[in-house]
């Protein structure tokens, strides 16, 4: 029972971070129909900006987070303006490859500045543990779950209530109709990328706090694919369900069966979902028959 609980908490914490990373991915896909293979590198860049501000410049963590958010917004807008906008209307392969190229560049830039060694960062979240139905559960995992839920809730409210959020949903729904209603599609595209970078920043910083600031953070970007396919490529609630499912699944398989198998299980789920229900649990179904 205690193992089960421990695995569940670890899985939920992983899942919460995955959901955050997937949220950025879904935002971009919803608004601009771009699949972002550089999502993991956004996490990486986010973690390293926070590290730079927090450790190297010795700022208090609130200021450091602010610096991180500002940098993420600038990065998102610049990437959208100079890399993705020229490719509007191009084929899927071009768009996929440009984000893959982007991921190589971002990763290499991080490597140039910080090298490949693991950087130590003082833990922001308390590291103790609490007794919980007989299991010793680390506090920081619980806090990660809380923070991620708060951020996801904030994003949900943003989409439901704020002007910009509603504009984004309108563009996602129908670009031309949105244009005729006076919504600036360009602005929305830029905003989608900026918000995606911000949510990736939060995911990256949380992940770095749980483990360490290192290059392998970027590998998280690939597990985002099973998450978004499971939840539906264009569904925000889907990222939460998908993220938690994949996070729990990985931890349980790794805990009860085989850690190596845990690496590949998400992809087996992915293929199964693609064969049975390609648009995911909550995704919008598009019917096209040949």
């Amino acid at each position, binding site marked *: 029972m205690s193992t089960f609980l421990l695995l569940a908490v670890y899985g939920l914490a992983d899942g919460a971070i995955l959901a955050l990373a997937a949220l950025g991915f879904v935002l971009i896909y919803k608004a601009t129909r771009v699949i972002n293979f550089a999502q993991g590198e956004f996490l990486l860049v986010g973690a390293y900006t926070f590290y730079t501000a927090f450790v190297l410049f010795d700022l208090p963590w609130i200021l450091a987070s602010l610096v991180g958010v500002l940098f993420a917004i600038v990065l998102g807008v610049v990437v959208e303006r100079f890399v993705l906008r*020229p490719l509007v209307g191009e084929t899927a392969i071009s768009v996929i490859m440009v984000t893959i*190229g982007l991921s190589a560049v971002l990763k290499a830039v991080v490597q140039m500045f910080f090298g490949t060694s693991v950087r130590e960062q003082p833990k922001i979240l308390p590291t103790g543990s609490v007794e919980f139905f007989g299991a010793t559960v680390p506090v920081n995992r619980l806090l990660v779950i809380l923070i991620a839920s708060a951020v996801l809730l904030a994003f949900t409210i943003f989409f439901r209530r704020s002007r910009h959020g509603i504009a984004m949903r309108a563009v996602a729904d129908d670009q031309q109709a949105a244009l005729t209603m006076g919504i600036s599609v360009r602005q929305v595209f830029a905003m989608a990328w900026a918000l995606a970078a911000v949510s990736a920043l939060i995911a990256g910083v949380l992940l770095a706090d749980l483990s360490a600031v290192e290059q392998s953070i970027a590998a998280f970007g690939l597990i985002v694919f099973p998450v978004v396919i499971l939840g539906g490529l264009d569904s925000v609630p889907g990222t939460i369900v998908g993220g938690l499912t994949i996070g729990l699944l990985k931890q349980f398989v790794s805990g009860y069966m085989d850690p*190596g198998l845990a690496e*590949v299980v998400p*992809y087996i789920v992915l293929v199964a979902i*693609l*064969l049975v229900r390609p648009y995911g649990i909550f995704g919008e179904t598009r019917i096209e028959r040949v």
Partner: protein
Amino acid sequence: MATATGIHHRTYRAELRLRHTKAEWARLAIIVVLLLVVPYLLNTYWLGIANSILIAVIGAVGLNILVGFTGQISLGQGGFLAVGAYTSAIASTRLGLPVPVAVIVAVFVTAGIGALFGLPALRLKGLYLAIATLASQEIIMFVVRRWGFLTEDKGYIEVPRFGFIERETFEIQWYWILLPITFLAVLMARNVFRSSLGRSFMAVRDQDIAAEAIGVNITRAKVTAFALSSGFVGLSGALSAYYTETVTWERFTLDVSVLYLAMIIVGGLGSIAGSVYGAIFMMLLPALLTELGDQVGDSIPFLSDQLPAIKNALFGAAIITFLLIEPRGLDRIWTRVKDYVRFWPFRY
């Protein structure tokens, strides 16, 4: 030389020819002479790179058949290369098959597995297919890493060197083995697209619904494209197994899939010649950067310290630059240069 008014065909046979003008024949002759002379001009190091290029060309041509000509995005290249390498290595070391037979077995096994992983393509398109092939890459990687019996629990397979290959002349002997194989593979790929099969691939890429309407069997075309493409990739993987003499999973990761996609993007999607240019470009780029680092390393320490990072950055930058500036790649640039020269001093 072609006349400035263009090339006019009087018969269908003439139109179907691989080479239409004397200039094209002359160019072919120059390339053949170059390829025959090259091994005597290069030292061992560069000859090794030439051999890697020859192997990569086969793989890039295979990927281009699928991505460039049939429009099915695949991120599973690394996995299929692994299938080719492992199959041929196991067939020749454990089953004791002669090497040519082992290579042929590897080609067919990879084609079969490629067709299997191509089945999702019957239902999925574009982005979804890309993600499905990403999963196939990860699953194949898992299999070759974790199924101990493939490597007899060693984690790698050692492939014995061919008896007739001498240590001193290793690279040059391999050059003579690889050159004809690569030449035949490229020629075969070029010919596929003069046949109805190749045309049906292109029809599926351009407009699948219209293709179905005029009687192209899309299911057949897609599965055949996956099989054919994987066959080339399997050949490339099998050759690399014998050339490098060890088979380990590290050489077939997702990065390899991305590298091959980069080759065909840079070279030109939907062009056999483009795959060749792209493979050369992408394999030469890191080698030339290493050379540059050695040359100026003392005066600019930053460059030599950061060489691996710079290589990665330039790799990504090359992909982005080509997509933004010339999405049709080196092949298109070559065509434009030819046109410029032909019409000079007029613009068009």
